[in-house]
């Protein structure tokens, strides 16, 4: 029975000691420990949230980059195709122009050639005429060196004239 009868002296000492321990530990141990643990947990949670946000930001940036790249690629393709078209246009224009110019120049050349040819022919004709006249003069001079022949011719000519 002694075992289950509390010893009041021990009750007093336990009460005093436990309350003393509670007050001391609360002030010097539990408060700083709980505060530090809470603080650390908050900072860890904060860091995790920040990491999550950074990850999201990162994926957002990656998406943005990808879309930018896609856009840039499309733009490049557009520019390239436009440039190609422009090049084709320029080349074809240039070809056409060159063609026209060539044709015009050929025409001009032909006209010039014709002109020159005409001039040359005229010249040749003049020369031939002059030469012919000179030859004819020389021949006539030779033929009409004696009087008799002249008379003969006159008479013949006269015969031919029919009055």
């Amino acid at each position, binding site marked *: 029975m002694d075992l289950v009868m509390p*010893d009041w002296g021990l*009750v007093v000492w336990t009460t005093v*000691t436990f309350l003393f321990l509670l007050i001391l*530990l609360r002030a*010097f*141990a539990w408060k*700083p*420990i709980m505060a530090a643990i809470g603080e650390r947990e908050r900072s860890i949670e904060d860091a995790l949230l920040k990491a999550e946000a950074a990850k999201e930001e990162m994926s957002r940036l990656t998406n943005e980059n990808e879309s930018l790249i896609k856009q840039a690629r499309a733009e490049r393709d557009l520019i390239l195709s436009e440039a190609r078209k422009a090049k084709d246009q320029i080349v074809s224009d240039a070809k056409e122009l060159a063609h026209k110019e060539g044709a015009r120049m050929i025409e001009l050349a032909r006209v010039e050639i014709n002109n020159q040819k005409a001039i040359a022919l005229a010249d040749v004709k003049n020369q031939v005429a002059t030469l012919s006249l000179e030859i004819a003069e020389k021949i006539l001079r030779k033929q009409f060196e004696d009087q008799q022949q002249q008379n003969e011719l006159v008479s013949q000519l006269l015969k031919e004239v029919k009055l």
Partner: protein
Amino acid sequence: MDFSPVLNSKKITLGIILSVFSLFVTLKANAVQEKNESSTSVESKETEKFDPNEAILEHIADSHYFHIGGKVAIGLPVILYTDGGLEVFSASEFEHGEKAHQGKYHNYALVKDKIKVVGADGKTIDETAKIFDLSITRNVFSMWMSVVLLILIFVSVAGSYKKRVGKAPKGLQSLLEPLILFIRDEVALPNIGYKYAKFMPLLLTMFFFILINNLIGMVPFFPGGSNLTGNIAVTMVLAVITLIVVNVNGNKYYWKHIFAPDVPFWLYPIMWIVELAGIISKPFALMVRLFANIMAGHVIVLALISLIFIFQTLWVSPVSIAFALFIDVLELLVAFLQAFIFTMLTALFIGSAVEEHHH
């Protein structure tokens, strides 16, 4: 106050671990020693038989002496509050109950480890004299030792928290942080809810006070071996603290549930009795549970060791030691379990008192 260099040093840690494990080894040593002791007493008093009942009760009860080993014992200070005034002397004056001590106001003698006022002859007990025994007994001494240990440990841990702000715990801090977090996340939060922070100091102090005293009680040699948490006075104080904390913090829903429950009004008187019994019986169960569990552990170990003396042969010792070892390992679990259950139920009762709901 910074003790972390002392407590964190590897030697000390190793020492603590070794002392915990040497508990099993020293059980054997103690057994042999007690055997020698009893054999000498058998020689001196041929007819005296070993009474296990008496031996066990003597070991689990409180004492004015702290036995170190063999016949060596420290007489602890005796403090008596008498009708005349305060008396302070050493218990060694009693010479293990052989002699009466003549104090300032009365003569005192140790009868069955209790201090009684005796007549001038030192034999006749004067039951009329009122004395209040405030002695520093073995349990009080052991409790103070545990308090010093707890303060050293936790103030140093608090110091390392201040020193290592935002860093991972290290050393003693990392050993105790899981326990502290366990009390917070598994005991306080689920049972009390968002108001838990206010009760954390009480729950933590209770848990570690019970735990360290359970563990000190398991060490079978000086300065351990006291049966503090297996003493009804100690568990009563703890249970009364729970009772007071629960009822002081009870909110209107708690009191409404007790004084105006949802039953026909003519049932109120019965309900009041039932609810009042509930208020008292909850801490009462706490008190008995801790007391009985820890005391039973001590009794079983002592009974197993007593087998050696009952059979008067050393050949029983392997069996005794094997079983005592098994029980000690079990008690190690019980030491944690009972500290946890006491704290858990305290949290549960506080939770039921501060809960906000309508019935």
